[in-house]
């Protein structure tokens, strides 16, 4: 049963929390004014990968389902963004890309659930999704006319581009930030909905969920679709930031990125992915910078360090950053409570 710790914000938001949130949002609206382009890009990546991490958390953290093909949706989003914006870069084409990726993710998520949910067990499902991911990546690599194959597909901004949203780094920052906020609220609403609660029940004990009358396969399909759409959208916005699509975004590497973000941030916490994304993105950036300035050969393999860091983190903070915070808070609350009720016998 693991440790007896709750890992989510399930209570009603109280006023102080709302004020803190408003303050935090204000800070993030103001600071980009003082940032260099490289910093703006990094921040934008953090915001978007946070949403991508949340999309993963819906499956892994809430439903207890390991999808090793999540990058299919993220990568498709990136491609869709580049392809549509290369036709014409304005908000209309962006919206069309969004519509297309929405439809594609709903269908893709549904199809994937039909394939995956036939297999019994988490491990079998993970293997099947891994295979699906590789199939999609392979197709993308061969289909050069559309995807540019291994060379990838750059996003070309024409000079008539009207949208500072897409063409300036500052605009893109705000775009990514608003995206993060909107998606956080949407996904929060989803996990707090009756459906979201059923997903938690499935994670905890699928058989019992069935015996409470829930068609658990149907709920898992819903989770997969919602998660796929969120991943697809984050890929789409990511295209605007990285201005480039290649098959890496479809590969297991990017699935593992999502997995790491939830691991580091804390599984099943939703918001943990924001911390996780900040940490993962920052550390990768930091190591690359360090490599550039120091020129140490070993720094050319950032995953060597990142990987070891993750291992340490998983060992010493198994619940992730936010999860660890909740554990501390729980421990503190319990200590306070037990002090307050020391004299009363246990009920």
């Amino acid at each position, binding site marked *: *049963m*693991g440790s*007896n710790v*709750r*890992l989510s914000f399930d209570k*009603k938001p109280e006023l102080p929390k709302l004020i803190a949130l408003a303050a935090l949002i204000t800070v993030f609206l103001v600071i980009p004014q003082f940032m260099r382009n490289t910093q703006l890009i990094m921040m934008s990546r953090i915001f978007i990968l946070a949403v991508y991490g949340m999309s993963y958390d819906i499956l892994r953290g809430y439903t207890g389902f390991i999808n090793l093909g999540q990058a299919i949706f993220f990568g498709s989003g990136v491609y869709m963004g580049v392809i549509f914006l290369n036709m014409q870069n304005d908000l209309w084409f962006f919206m069309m890309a969004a519509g297309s990726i929405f439809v594609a993710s709903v269908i893709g998520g549904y199809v994937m659930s039909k394939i995956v949910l036939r297999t019994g067990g988490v491990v079998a499902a993970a293997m099947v999704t891994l295979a699906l991911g590789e199939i999609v990546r392979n197709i993308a690599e061969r289909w050069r006319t559309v995807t540019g194959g291994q060379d990838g597909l750059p996003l070309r901004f024409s000079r008539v581009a009207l949208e500072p949203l897409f063409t300036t780094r500052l605009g893109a920052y705000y775009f990514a930030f608003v995206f993060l906020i909107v998606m956080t609220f*949407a996904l929060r*609403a*989803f996990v*707090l*909905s*009756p*459906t*979201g*609660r*059923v997903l*938690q*029940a499935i994670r*905890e*004990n699928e*058989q*019992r*969920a*069935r*015996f*409470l*009358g*829930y*068609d658990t396969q*149907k*709920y898992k399909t*819903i989770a997969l679709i919602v998660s796929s759409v969120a991943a697809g959208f984050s890929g789409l916005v990511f295209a605007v930031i990285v201005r480039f699509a290649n098959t890496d975004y479809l590969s297991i590497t990017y699935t593992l990125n999502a997995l790491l973000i939830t691991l580091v941030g804390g599984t099943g916490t939703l918001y943990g992915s924001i911390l996780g994304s900040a940490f993962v993105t920052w550390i990768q950036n930091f190591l690359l910078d360090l490599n550039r300035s120091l020129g140490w050969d070993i720094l050319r393999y950032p995953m060597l360090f990142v990987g070891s860091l993750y291992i340490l983190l998983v060992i010493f903070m198994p619940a992730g950053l936010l999860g660890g915070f909740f554990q501390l808070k729980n421990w503190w609350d319990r200590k306070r409570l037990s002090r307050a009720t020391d004299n009363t016998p246990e*009920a």
Partner: protein
Amino acid sequence: MSDMILRTEHLGVSFGALKAVNDVSLEIEKGKFTTILGPNGAGKTTYFNLISGLLKPTTGKIFFKDADITSYKAIDRIAAGMGRSFQLTNVFPMLTVHENIRLSAQSYSKVGARLFRSHRRYDAVNSKTDEILERVLLPHRRNALAASLTHGEQRKLELGMVLALEPEVLLLDEPTAGMAIEQVPVMIDIMRDTHQRGTTVLLIEHKMDLVKQLSDRLVILVNGKVLADGNPTEVSQNPEVLKAYLGGGVLDATTA
């Protein structure tokens, strides 16, 4: 025949050579409290698994409210009005007591598949959850994680979860299993109360003394077969049952 709510005809299942349930034909009357008694390994839980759809029978048929449900999936049987609890506590460990019961109340209210509106804003679900918490005497443990409950409290939660489904037929698999002796009367009271509200109860028990007063009918199951069936006084004096009690000591009638 309309007062028969649940019926099994020649129901049986084998695990290899073992006939765990062997040709059991029973008719459960609507509104009655029926108890199935039997020694360890008699096939009681397996019988419930067949009725509730966890296992497929190798022989026989199951009828619920005159419909042949033998091929129904478990969730369809629940939708039809059946509810079961488990002998081994089977809850959502990392959710609170309130959340565990609310999931059940939510299923009963049929709002499970709603998206994007907070689960807290369904008043019917909330009041149902509170009502059940009261009925199983757990209001004070409302925000405790199920995993952190004592065994006795978990048994109450287990019962509360199935009560919140408001089934027409309630299948209870040893709700007092492993409970401290002084806690047992509380469970008996909850069961009696539930029965008095009009629910048909089918209970599995181990100890005859606990259920003699409670039950309208006793069914003795031994080696997957019905050994005796009738009103509690008759059955408890049935020579074959007495033999099973005294001779093999398979039913622990002596322990109060």
